[in-house]
């Protein structure tokens, strides 16, 4: 297989260990005076966007930042709970850049690019240094050093954290750096603004059309380069752990303007989420993977067991992850854990009203911690109650906010009864295809963070998205953008009265006008929920040919129905959350189809993509490396018409093997 001639990944020459170092020494630079006249648009203020915007402004570029929330601090990175990986080897447990690289490639089921992942692992340590210097309050040991915990898919402790609020603290660090640049006038902020279109001139990205969400006014903004840091598209499933506003609009508009979409079908379903409680449900809540450090996952050994969990004796419990995967146990990667839970529930061993839940139980570790505490405090012959009390205090310190959240949502106290959990849509490995420079197939248009497809292959390891977002923003784009902008120093600021801007604006105007004037009978959510159901059932944890074909035709007709029967109340020229939703759902209705097309095309199982036709006898994912070791990069031709381009994945440093966590 050879890569498509339209895809040049621009991977630098040299050995894997030297690529990034050499690249940085040779990349073209832009001198300080020229930086001052180069303008960069950053769409998105999550970890990727805030870190990029702050760093680029510090370097001297003129930066504009856009986000749809009322403040950059509210981007959905804020909700990340568990932690961020870095190959610091502070625990002296054998970690290294190579091991982080290896774990990530293997965790991604051998569907990620070696050079990108190695760069990520190399940079990981600097991220922790940078965040530490900003005053991010990471968890610490009594000696004052940084603390670590374990995450899935690894056998070392390399995850840095701030209780269950790691994303919040990292984002507030990046946000502070961004606000500092805003205060100095180096960055101009456009909060409550939604990017609606990319503007291209002579084939290059030259700006965006944005809608001011308060007044509804459309605005034209010029940039020598445009960075999309707009997050993931998990909300195509309606129910997910993403925030309500997360969307694909920016990436989708880019796609329709020539940016190829990489691996759209790679979706991460996270094993430990609070189960759905009813049709009213608007979103799902994650219970961080860090809980799997101390929680044991089990079901009853008896089908349809109606007993309460605390009444089921230990010998009648099936710790199915420990049973199936003794080497990694409860810490297998997410895709493996999710499928195993689904398998148990489908077979009738689930619990709760819907029978679609398994237990996550902290009793054993509560007792273990309690015993350690009694020893520490020199308590002799402690009572069982005393041990449990002390153990609960340790659990509370580690996971207090998660336990509170669980209790608030379910009305059950996880200190007393095991949590009930079930897998839910969480993250999208797919995204805009980018080269080593993070540039899409449209020159001047870059994608960072979850919005790109780059580093996680077919399955992302826990605590690696925060790492990637910050790597892209703090340490990759500041260099790689020079490769492009050094050729742009003669390009003068282009007037936003240029025809291309006017045409793009008119297109958006027309789109909004159409949505406002359908005046149909059903609210936007009606369509979104139906789309989500199709996607979850046919393009979720398990997929097959028949189901995907059915989904494609269902989505096509749902899209037609949407465009003839959706009801968007209010006016276009005012604050109108329903209009915002309508526009986002319109894009999801197109993306969903492409995801199914991609899933249908990939006739193998890998990572989060599980095709029922392709599995081993034990029900594990069965890859087909001979025919599918490629990135699927889709080109938009027309409605429902996408062309596949392949980027071949070459493994020169890792021996590609059947993934095993046994």
């Amino acid at each position, binding site marked *: 297989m050879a890569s498509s001639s339209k895809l040049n990944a621009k991977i630098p020459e040299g050995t894997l260990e030297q690529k990034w170092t050499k690249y940085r020494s040779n990349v073209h630079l832009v001198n300080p005076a020229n930086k001052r006249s180069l303008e960069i648009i950053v769409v998105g203020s999550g970890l990727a966007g805030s870190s990029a915007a702050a760093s680029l402004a510090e370097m001297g570029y003129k930066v504009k930042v856009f986000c749809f929330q009322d403040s950059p601090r509210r981007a959905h990175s*804020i909700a990340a709970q568990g932690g961020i990986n870095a190959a610091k080897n*502070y625990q002296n447990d054998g970690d290294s850049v190579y091991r982080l690289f290896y774990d990530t490639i293997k965790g991604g089921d051998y569907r990620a690019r070696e050079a990108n992942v190695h760069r990520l692992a190399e940079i990981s340590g600097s991220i922790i240094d940078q965040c530490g210097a*900003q005053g991010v309050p*990471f968890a610490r040991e009594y000696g004052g050093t940084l603390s670590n915990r374990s995450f899935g898919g690894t056998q070392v402790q390399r995850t840095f954290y701030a209780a269950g609020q790691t994303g919040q603290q990292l984002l507030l660090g990046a946000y502070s750096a961004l606000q500092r640049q805003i205060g100095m006038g180096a960055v101009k902020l456009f909060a409550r603004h939604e990017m609606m279109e990319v503007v291209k001139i002579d084939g290059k990205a030259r700006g965006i059309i944005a809608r001011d969400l308060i007044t509804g006014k459309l605005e034209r903004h010029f940039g020598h380069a445009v960075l999309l840091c707009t997050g993931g598209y998990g909300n195509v499933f309606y129910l997910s752990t993403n*925030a309500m506003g997360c969307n694909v609009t920016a990436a989708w508009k880019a796609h329709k303007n020539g940016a190829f979409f990489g691996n759209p079908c790679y979706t991460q379903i996270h094993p430990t989420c609070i189960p759905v409680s009813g049709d*009213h449900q608007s979103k799902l809540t994650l219970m961080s993977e860090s809980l799997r450090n101390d929680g044991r996952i089990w079901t009853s050994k008896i089908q349809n067991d109606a007993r309460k969990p605390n009444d089921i004796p230990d010998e009648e419990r099936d710790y199915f992850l420990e049973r199936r995967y003794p080497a990694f146990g409860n810490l297998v990667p997410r895709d493996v854990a999710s499928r195993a839970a689904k398998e148990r529930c489908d077979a009738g061993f689930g619990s709760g009203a819907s029978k679609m839940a398994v237990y996550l139980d902290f009793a054993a570790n509560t007792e273990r911690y309690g015993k350690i505490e009694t020893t520490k405090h020199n308590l002799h012959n402690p009572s069982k109650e005393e041990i449990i009390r002390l153990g609960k205090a340790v659990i509370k310190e580690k996971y207090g906010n998660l336990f509170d959240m669980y209790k608030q949502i379910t009305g059950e106290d996880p200190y007393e009864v095991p949590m009930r959990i079930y897998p839910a849509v969480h993250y999208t490995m797919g995204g805009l295809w980018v080269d080593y420079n993070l540039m899409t197939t449209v020159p001047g248009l870059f994608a960072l963070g979850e919005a790109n497809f780059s580093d996680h292959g077919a399955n992302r390891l826990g605590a690696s998205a925060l790492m990637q977002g910050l790597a892209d923003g703090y*340490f990759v784009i500041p260099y790689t953008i020079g490769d492009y902008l050094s050729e742009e120093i003669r390009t003068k600021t282009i007037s936003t009265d240029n025809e291309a801007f006017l045409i793009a604006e008119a297109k958006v105007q027309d789109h909004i006008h159409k949505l406002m004037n359908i005046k149909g009978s059903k609210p936007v959510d009606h369509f979104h929920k139906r789309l989500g159901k199709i996607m979850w059932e046919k393009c979720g944890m398990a997929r097959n040919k028949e189901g995907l074909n059915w989904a494609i035709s269902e989505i096509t007709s749902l899209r037609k129905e949407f465009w003839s029967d959706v009801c968007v109340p209010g006016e276009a020229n005012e604050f109108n*959350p329903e209009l915002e939703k309508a526009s986002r759902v319109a894009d999801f209705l197109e993306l969903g189809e492409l995801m199914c097309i991609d899933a249908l095309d990939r006739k193998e199982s890998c990572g989060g993509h599980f095709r029922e036709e392709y599995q081993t006898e034990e029900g594990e994912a069965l890859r087909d490396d001979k025919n599918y070791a490629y990135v699927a990069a889709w080109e938009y031709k027309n409605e429902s018409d996408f062309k596949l381009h392949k980027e071949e994945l070459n493994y020169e440093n890792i021996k590609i093997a059947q993934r095993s966590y046994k």
Partner: protein
Amino acid sequence: MSQGNMNLTLKVWKQKNKNEKGRFETFDAKGISPDMSFLEMFDVVNERLISSGKEPIAFDHDCREGICGMCSMYINGRPHGPKQGVTTCQLHMRSFKDGDTIVVEPWRSAAFPVIKDLAVNRSSFDRIIASGGFVSVNTGNAKDANNILIPKHDADDAFNAAACIGCGACVAACKNSSAMLFVSAKVSQLALLPQGQFEKKERVLNMVKQMDEEGFGNCTNTGACEAECPKSISLENIARMNREYLKASFS
């Protein structure tokens, strides 16, 4: 739509935009399930309004798990409603009784103008952070993270202050519309850490100056902010900020 058995009456503040006058309007919320969150109850009401050709109620929200700080409803006279330590999005209908009348208003403060209905503009908070809520360290300048040792106790205190979600409930709760709890949380976080020491003086002076310019009121130590803060940000932070401010002003 899942059905529940609670029937409620909502009195909700409706206001077209910041220039027009607002008023309360009454809405029925029928068949509400106690397992719904407060915002999911609003979703149900809005869906019904839209389906019957009426305008829905505008409100801010995003993460719906109590961390982004976007949701901002003033419920029965209390920011984020009756429960301690939770945001509006985490409040569940089981905290109410069948037949209740619930009054819902936006945050009210001169520094938070209404955008529409229950949504307000809180960009004043961003400007306060821009005036000094950071450590001036450019990307790439940092040393190995374990070169900065921090006693666990200080790190924990800094973390507790840093847990603020910037929601503005403290301002909404305060009869003076003071933003002291919010500002002091950031000042404290950085004052407690070695990284924050170098800019300590300018930080507190600049942030307080910006706070005053934004039109927030003075603090008279009523403690309403702490009581209503969904993240239990402590009043000790205000005391710490006052000390920092005095030190900075006299040196």
